[in-house]
């Protein structure tokens, strides 16, 4: 007997003591009648217990000294870094997409045409393609909401389709197990509209990460992908506006989160 998909977040929150009384009563009542969910809860509990035994680590000898050394070493360079960033920002294209169902299918279709085996393609870095940049520009021309500066050196065309590539790393996700894992994990995502934002050239700037973004990551020094709530998008765009960065955006109604491979380039940039 399998657990009930719709109860997974509640079971998880039950174990964490994060349910209201009413919610807890409801889950407990369900557990009385559902063996699958009881088993799942027991498994969660077993994992929880295993975490408690996790090893702690002492920082290596001289760790703090190393930090202080880096503080000193970073200080004189700071200005150059900032200057470099500003000039980069002036010419870099900051591109913002809110990715939703319609866009996803467009990109999905394109990629399927470009790649005989799109699933494999997700896991590898896309090669820059001039053609892709053209297509990209056309695609967003209609939804452009701000004047767009697209420097030819910006790697705008270099990314592949939005892909669930983050899941490509999971070992048991092969064949059937893979479908199950992905289905299960994306089933609950529909609750909040999200956007994926690509930023080129300013990825290292802290404020982009600290403000407005509900979750973020960046792959190297020059390219970033941000995953944020659509409702935070305005706030985020305001930050970019404040720094005089141009961008283009579209807003999706569909709630979707993607993990996207993007083109790197010069990590020292």
């Amino acid at each position: 007997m399998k657990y009930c998909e719709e109860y997974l977040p509640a079971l998880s929150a039950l174990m964490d003591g994060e349910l209201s009384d009413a919610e807890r009563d409801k889950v407990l009542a369900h557990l009385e009648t559902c063996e699958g969910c009881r088993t799942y809860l027991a498994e969660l509990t077993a994992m929880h217990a295993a975490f408690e035994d996790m090893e702690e680590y002492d920082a290596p000898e001289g760790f703090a000294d190393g930090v202080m050394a880096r503080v000193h070493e970073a200080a004189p360079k700071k200005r150059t870094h900032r200057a470099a960033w500003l000039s980069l920002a002036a010419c870099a294209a900051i591109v913002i997409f809110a990715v939703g169902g319609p866009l996803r299918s467009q990109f999905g279709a394109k990629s399927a045409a470009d790649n005989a085996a799109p699933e494999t393609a997700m896991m590898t870095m896309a090669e820059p393609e001039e053609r892709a940049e053209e297509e990209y520009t056309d695609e967003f021309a209609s939804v452009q909401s701000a004047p767009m500066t697209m420097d030819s050196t910006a790697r705008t065309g270099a990314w592949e389709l939005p892909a669930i590539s983050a899941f490509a790393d999971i070992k048991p996700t092969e064949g059937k197990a893979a479908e199950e894992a992905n289905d299960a994990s994306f089933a609950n995502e529909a609750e909040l509209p999200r956007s994926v934002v690509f930023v080129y050239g300013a990825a290292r700037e802290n404020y982009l990460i600290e403000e407005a973004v509900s979750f973020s990551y960046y792959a190297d020094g020059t390219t970033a992908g941000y995953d944020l709530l659509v409702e935070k998008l305005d706030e985020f765009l305001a930050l970019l506006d404040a720094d005089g960065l141009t961008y283009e955006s579209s807003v999706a109604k569909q709630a979707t989160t993607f993990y996207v491979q993007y083109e790197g380039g010069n990590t020292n940039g």
Partner: protein
Amino acid sequence: MNEKELILLLQQGDEAAFETLVRLYEKKIYTLCRRMCGNDEDAQEAAQDAFLALWRSAKSFRGDASLSTWLYRLATNACIDLLRRSKRGGERVSLDDEETTFELVDAAPLPEQALERKETQRLINEGLAALPEDYRAILLLREAEGLSYAEIAAAMHMELGTVKSRISRGRVLLRNYLTASGNFFDSASSKVTECNREEMSAK
């Protein structure tokens, strides 16, 4: 000098105060980074990055979250950044990492229980390493650091609902990994029920 005073000094650029804070938090942050990265070298770099980010962003620390929450955020970001960078460089964190797999080889004979515990730890670490970084991070904050959903929401700048669903999803993924890997639920829990065994043997 208490933490509040140290933070005030840090915000004025006081290096001594900063160093005191580093020493105060280095074990906590290093442990988180070590668990995130899975090896000492990356953990050290990420933990240093995190403290460096603290130094640079001290002025924007508003004190509405605790310093440790802020540091968790900086450390998590530093780890995810580092892991993604090294992935691009081709040094993947591999599930087949020989070091991990053969960790037990040199171990002196252990009582059965301790052995079981070590195996459980190995499997959990392996399962964590198999997760996408963001799920690994949120699970560690919840399970290993013991943060509440509200604290995680503050640390990660997420909505509470998102925290809840991501933790749940992370657990599903980890559970699926551990189920597929065979004996975790046998050794970690005696509560494995019959229907679960059926499920596993049906594969």
